[in-house]
Structure formats: C-alpha cells, structure tokens
C-alpha cells in the first residue's frame, strides 16, 4: 500500500521543517511531497537544504492548483492513498495512521480530519465557525450528508478520488466544493475526530475582505456541483 502526504506550502519558511519532522516522526510509513506554490520567501531553499522531496511550481497557482498538482503526482506515481496536510503546523500527523485505517478498514473513499466531532483543540474563531456551520447545512441540503467540518484541509482519499481530483479540482477555496463533487458521485465520505492547532506561522488565505467573496463563491460552487451528475 503506497501512501502519500501532500504538503501544500506557500511562504511557510517558519513552519515547513516542523511539519515535515512531525510527519516523519508520526507517519513513517507515508511518503511525502511538498508542493511549493511559488513562495516568495525561503520555503524552497529550506526544502532543498533538508532534501525534502519538493514539486516546485514556477507560477503561483493558489491552494487549489497546488493541491491538485499533488494529486496528479500521486496518480502518476501509483499511490493508493493520498492525504492533504497543511504546511503551517495546523495539522497533527499522529492522526494519519487512524485515518488510513478507517479509510481502508471501512472501504471509504474519503476520510476528513474533523475539529467538530469531539470539539477539542483549536476550534477556529466565532464568525468562521458560523460560516462552517452554514456550509454543513448547505451540503446536507444538497447531498443529504452531514459533514461537520467541510472546510478542513486534512483529508485522505483512495485511488479513485486521487484520479478524479487529478482531473477536476476547484481553483480557489476548494475544500467544501470538492467534498460535494465526490458525494454527488456516490463516494463514501466519513469524518474522524482530530485536534488542530492555531496557526503559528504564516497568515490565513482568507482575509476578512475576502470572506464575503469566499461565502458567495463557495455557496454558488456547491449549488452548481449539486446540479452536476
């Protein structure tokens, strides 16, 4: 069973080494690859210095295009399982083993690391949590399935979904939409409780100004994804 950790990184010079150490320590049977999304800081140099495997995007694609590069890489290198894992220290690698066991044991297509099942660890801030609850409601409305943490960037998928995402993946704010597209394809998605950390390094890609655009764009994308067959 070949398993790959996709670590998207944009200007993560402060957190990338820690993230990789966490992964190497707690998920030693996984391979990993850093997707450097044309960082303007020393992310690439740090990866090269430590000889981390890195796919270096020559042009900044944003989170969607970056993560998709990881899925294409996983598909072409015959990985059976791929998992997204943020490069900024928000995710904890201790859960990867459990996620993989759940995915294969229950024959699932996707396992999401969810902050809101046990409600432990960093829970995000007030307004964001309302936004996340709204997406849970909207996804339930269009698919009938309850996803407690649809914006979680910690998600593990099997080879079917790797192949699908290698071909189709949203460009920006991809998490909720990409869950809906595979639910609509009849894929099985389950969640597992995880604890996340507050961000130590780097800044969120969703600033207050962008959050209005985020809500509208993602809502529309979910509705359109629901119309697809």
């Amino acid at each position: 069973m070949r398993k790959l950790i996709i670590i998207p990184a944009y200007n993560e010079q402060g957190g990338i080494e820690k993230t990789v150490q966490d992964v190497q320590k707690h998920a030693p049977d996984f391979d990993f690859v850093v997707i450097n999304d044309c960082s303007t800081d020393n992310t690439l140099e740090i990866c090269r210095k430590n000889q981390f495997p890195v796919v270096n995007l020559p042009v900044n694609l944003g989170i969607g295009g970056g993560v998709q590069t990881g899925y294409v890489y996983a598909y072409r290198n015959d990985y059976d399982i791929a998992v997204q894992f943020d490069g900024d220290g928000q995710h904890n690698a201790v859960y990867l083993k459990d996620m993989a066991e759940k995915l294969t044991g229950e024959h699932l297509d996707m396992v999401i690391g969810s902050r809101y099942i046990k409600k432990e660890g960093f829970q995000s801030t007030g307004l964001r949590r309302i936004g996340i609850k709204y997406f849970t409601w909207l996804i339930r409305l269009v698919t009938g399935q309850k996803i407690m943490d649809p914006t979680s960037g910690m998600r593990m998928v099997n080879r079917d979904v790797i192949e699908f995402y290698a071909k189709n993946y949203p460009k920006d704010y991809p998490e909720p939409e990409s869950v809906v597209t595979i639910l609509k394809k009849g894929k099985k998605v389950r969640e597992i409780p995880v604890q996340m950390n507050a961000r130590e390094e780097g800044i969120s890609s969703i600033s207050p100004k962008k959050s209005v655009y985020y809500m509208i764009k993602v809502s529309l994308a979910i509705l359109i994804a629901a119309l697809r067959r």
Partner: protein
Amino acid sequence: MSLKIQIIVAVVLIVALVAIINMVRKEALDIRFALSWLTVGVIVLFLDVFPSVMDWLVHLFGIELPVNMMFFFGFCFTLFLVFGLTIKVSRQSEQLKRLTQEVALLEKSLEDVKNNE
C-alpha cells in the same frame, strides 16, 4: 446626418481599420481576435457611407432615433465581445494551470532521475 460628420466618421474608421490590419501584419494582434473588430468597423463604415440603409433599419426595428440604434447595437456588440473574452480567459487560466503543473512535475522527475544515477 451632415456630410461633414459623415466624412469625419469615415476617416476615423478607415484609420482604425488600417491600424488593425497593420497590427495583424506585424503579428501584434491575432487575426482571430481582429476579425470581430474588422467586421464591426466595415459595417459601421457601410452605414456611414449609405445613411439611407440606417434609416431603413431604424424604421424596421421601430426605433425613434438613428443615434439610439447605434448606442444599442454598440452596447450589445461590446457585451458580446467582453463575454467572449471572459470565456477565453477562463480557458486560458485552465491551460496555464495545467502547463504550470506539468513543468513542476517534469522538473521533479528530472531530479529523481538525476538522484538515482
């Protein structure tokens, strides 16, 4: 429409058409994108030279003033063109994304080959 304004419009249009053709000749403008501009330039020039055709069209569409028809069709043409460009931008951003990914993945496999030697 006075003869004076007719001549001014005709001169402006001819200069614009020549400029567009010249840009295509120098390959500064793709002929596929120049076509719609050339077409609309020729149509307006035709209406300018034969204003009676314009009067007939205005009557046909039931529009009061010829100038309103020009605004209306001009606006429609612009919308059409801008939307066409939006579609092209969407397609190109997808193509650009794919190319970027391929370049990055090729670089990675090149490194892997080097490291295995």
